[in-house]
């Protein structure tokens, strides 16, 4: 759609955004909330927030993707904060401590290389995993990730470099049969089922 020839309406922008970014946004929100229904609510609010934009033509372009992911991330983090406040009233803090038992995700891993990659990816620190997900799952550039997360481009590059290097080390340790070094990050949502 060319904004110079055809005036962009908000409804058109919303339809195009839903068609193109529905699935990656829900997946990204689910990676933060660890809850599919909550992720759907977050993405629905993200698309609805497009209606509040006074100048939809400003977002009709490459900036739409960054805008949608930024809003989705902020709303997912807001949902997480509200949920932590609610949970903290009726749950013991001991419920959210990492268990020493093996992760169920690890037990279900069938041993092939892709499962290993996913298993090790879930063990990376949150900031590295988020940058890697935005880069390789959602095809965002370093600059777009920096705008979304509020980090600098160099910091994003460092996080991606460190995450990839860590993954390679873990995979090489796994291939060599050595015991993998124990790394466990604190998940964003701190829920027992989300590691």
């Amino acid at each position, binding site marked *: 759609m060319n904004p110079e020839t055809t005036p962009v309406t*908000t*409804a058109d922008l*919303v*339809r195009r955004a*839903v068609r193109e970014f*529905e*699935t990656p946004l*829900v*997946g990204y929100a*689910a990676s933060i909330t660890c809850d*599919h229904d909550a*992720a*759907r*609510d977050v*993405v*629905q609010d993200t*698309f*609805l*927030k497009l*209606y*509040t934009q006074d100048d939809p033509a400003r977002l009709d372009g490459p900036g739409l993707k960054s805008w949608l992911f930024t809003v989705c991330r902020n709303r997912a983090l807001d949902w997480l904060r509200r949920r932590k406040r609610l949970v903290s009233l009726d749950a013991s803090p001991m419920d959210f401590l990492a268990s020493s038992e093996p992760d169920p995700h690890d037990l279900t891993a069938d041993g092939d*290389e*892709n499962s290993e*990659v*996913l298993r090790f*990816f879930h063990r990376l620190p949150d900031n590295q995993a988020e940058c*890697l*997900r935005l*880069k*390789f*799952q959602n095809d965002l*550039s*370093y600059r777009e990730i920096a705008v979304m997360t509020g980090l600098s481009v*160099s910091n994003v*590059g*460092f996080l*991606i*470099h*460190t995450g*990839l*290097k860590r*993954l*390679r080390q873990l*995979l090489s340790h796994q291939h060599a049969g050595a015991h993998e070094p124990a790394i466990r990050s604190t998940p964003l949502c701190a829920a027992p089922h989300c590691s």
Partner: protein
Amino acid sequence: MNTSPDHPDFTALALGEHINGIPAQAVLDALRTSVSARHEADQIRATANQLAFVLKGQPPVRLDDARRNAIFNADVAAVRARFSAEDCAALAEEPGPVVERAPRTWIYPTLAAAAVAVAAIIVMKFLPSPADVQKEAPPIATENDEPTGRIMVESPTPNSPVRERNQGPGIGPVIVEQGVKPPLPDKGPALSPANEPPVQVVKEAPPPRPLVPSPLVPNSPPPESDTPPPGISPPTKILPGSFATPPKTPGKPGR
């Protein structure tokens, strides 16, 4: 640009990212010439492709129809009102900006320094300097000067200055002259007792003279004469013409 394979810039270029919008020629040359750099770049790309394949291969999660219809058929005014209310609530929840105040320990030293500075300015401005004091001092009295009602007290030692004492308010300033003894008039104007200013005799106390050997000092000789021992000045002598009041006789203490 760092061309080391273990550097974020190298990883970024191996992934096709442009650092600062300009492809780094040094890293690209290193990739072409160095076998190890090329191998490292291939390893990075392989891991990245594998991770992208795994992440993109996850089962897609989509919106349900109800949510999708709610998005497409949304009432724009209601949506705007809702998000406006949410923004207001978020602003209300946010704590206000915390203003960091410097500790106020500097106030007291500053006030003290200011007070000292003001005091120094006042002293320098209003108090006369020693040169001004000498300049403004009245001339030394001569023989033709009228007596001013001062009492001249003879110095106990020959070389000490003659001392004058003012005998009341409104009489001239104190003049100290070294070794000069002003002559007294033969017949001065008689002062009636009513006009007399109150006179106070300045008299030095006589040195104590031990009459008996001191019990504290063993073998101390008794005094042989009335002459004071060396180092003790004789009692002050009141010059003629001065006004002295008779010493009070001890009696009953008054009320």
